[in-house]
């Protein structure tokens, strides 16, 4: 066995034994809990009217007498149980007050998710050592899950309520969105037709059809953005740059605010000179342009500094997840008090 392989084998064995000990002794680690909440909807519409489902525990239900639910026929009631994540301390407190209670329960699936998240985090981090199959699997899972999730969410948050819900509101309400209360609006056939035309590029013939809706979307977005950028980024920025060089406050001359104004105007002018190519950058113009480069470099440096700060924060939260949520080594927010 090569030296490097031996070292890695030892690291994995030690980490595995430590994890096993930690998971099976004391308060354990990597366990997720949920709170069960029963949801109940009742159809309050009279016979012959369109269904009107009211959620029992919402303000809208106050107008009805839902104290005696069984008096509503079974087919007029729909119910399910929701599982919201709960901190381990809530489960511990509930168990202490009422052993064997069923409001807060251990969630096997969420716990498996927690362990998978930790493993995938290590999988992604492992690329820093070198490319490996574990990294490739993690990356493929992220890409696949994201694409599928995006598609499903877009269908339920946009296509159903904002397109099909406008064209066929009763049908959508009957099987997908009981809370939907829209009137038919056939103008929404236009985006439906445009959408179908856009997908026509997948057909073996007539790919050109997709260019028409594409041209429409590009035109609309160009118009929208042109106006917004002209107004917000161009005209407003010119206005914001017109500031007095000497600032006077209630106590007279404000030196620091004045200095800020001088830097603002000065920095703006030298940067503009740097991007002004109608004159050769020689002599006074050249020197001013050089100062402009320095101002730009300082700006890029500040931007890079912020980027570094952001990346460190991202690493910090992954490590917090590993140490806090998974390994239970730290508990800064008191999630496991009483466990």
């Amino acid at each position, binding site marked *: 066995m090569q030296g490097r392989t031996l070292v890695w084998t030892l690291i994995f064995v030690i980490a595995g034994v430590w994890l096993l000990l930690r998971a099976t002794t004391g308060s354990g680690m990597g366990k997720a809990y949920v709170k069960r909440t029963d949801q109940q909807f009742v159809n309050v519409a009279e016979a012959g009217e369109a269904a009107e489902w009211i959620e029992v525990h*919402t303000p809208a239900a106050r107008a009805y007498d839902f104290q005696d639910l069984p008096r509503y026929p079974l087919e007029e009631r729909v119910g399910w149980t929701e599982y919201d994540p709960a901190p381990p301390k809530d489960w511990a407190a509930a168990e202490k007050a009422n052993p064997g209670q069923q409001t807060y329960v251990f969630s096997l699936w969420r716990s498996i998710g927690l362990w998978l998240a930790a493993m995938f985090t290590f999988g992604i981090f492992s690329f820093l050592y070198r490319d490996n199959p574990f990294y490739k699997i993690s990356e493929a899972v992220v890409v696949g899950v994201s694409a599928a999730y*995006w598609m499903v969410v877009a269908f339920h948050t946009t296509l159903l309520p904002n397109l099909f819900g406008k064209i066929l509101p009763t049908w959508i309400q009957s099987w997908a969105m009981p809370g939907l209360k829209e009137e038919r609006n056939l103008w929404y056939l236009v985006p439906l037709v445009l959408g179908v035309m856009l997908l026509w590029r997948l057909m073996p013939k007539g790919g050109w059809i997709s260019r028409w809706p594409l041209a429409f979307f590009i035109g609309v*977005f160009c118009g929208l953005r042109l106006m917004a950028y002209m107004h917000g980024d161009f005209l407003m920025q010119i206005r914001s740059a017109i500031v007095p060089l000497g600032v006077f406050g209630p106590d007279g001359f404000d030196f620091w605010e004045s200095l800020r104004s001088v830097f603002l105007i000065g920095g703006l002018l030298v940067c503009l000179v740097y991007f002004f190519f109608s004159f050769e950058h020689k002599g006074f113009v050249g020197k001013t342009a050089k100062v402009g480069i320095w101002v730009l470099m300082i700006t890029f440096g500040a931007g890079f500094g912020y980027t*570094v*700060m952001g990346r460190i924060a991202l*690493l*910090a939260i992954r490590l917090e997840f590993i140490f806090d949520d998974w390994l239970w080594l730290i508990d800064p927010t*008191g999630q496991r008090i009483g466990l």
Partner: protein
Amino acid sequence: MNAAWAWTILVVVVGASLVVLVTRREQTYRALKDLDRRWIFLLMLLAVAIPILGELTFPEKPTGLAKAVFDEIEKLEPGDKVLMAWDYDPASEGELGPMATAFTYHCCKKGLKMYYMTIFSPVGPQMIDDSINNVLKTEFPHYEYGVDYVNLGYKPGYEGVVKVIVSDLKELYTTDHYGTSTRDIPMMKDIRNIQQMDLIVNVSAGYAGTKEWVLFATTPYPENIKMVAGTTGVMAPGMYPYIPDQLLSLLAAIKGAAEYEELVMSAYGNDDLGLKYRKGMLRMGPQLIAHVLIIILIIIANIIYFAEKRRGAA
């Protein structure tokens, strides 16, 4: 771990490294010149992990921008309407989660009506759920869904969504995130568009986010729409020019979050809350150590560069 201990350890480590550098110059030069970058990754991991394990925090002194954000929310009266535009996803939760939590806590303490929505990503509603589950449901159980807060969820369309809801909110938001008709939600009954909001609080990780809200909401309607924002570090330099005319103020990255947390906790916090609402401050500990490491690495890299240049010339 307190700051004094951290500084002591840091000074000892840097001092010992300098001693090694001076006494064994040639060996150190060769070792650093051919240093495998994976050692730097390991050092960075330790620089971030050790402060987290030691729960290292530093006192924060809020700057003018953080104070301005705090003051804008303070000016509001109980019952005022606030649009909470949570335009971020799990990829930027580390930077933006703490400020989103602090914003929610502050708005709850002020008794404001909160309208949550997101135009950034389909996983934005989960970020909203985080704020609701971690703050509203735990600290403010008397807050009622549909009366005190509502989750309008995610709508694709980026700036197109903003463009529509500045004039007609219900055209796009026919239902909330859970499928309930917005007509049945009491706090949505009188809402026609977002010009009726007393303030927009935006937490943004990129496109679509703060810039789109500025260009399509606050700029065309400067009298009716006011906004404060919190952004990632990458975005922050691009947002500063909008202050204060188009954007009232800005929390930049985790530093801005930590400063804002300090203001909120000073005004409304108590000891029982622990570090729950100080996650930004908690993440500033690793920031300091990691930044010191980066500065040392930059200095060392420059020393090696010039030493190599000098040797080459010789």
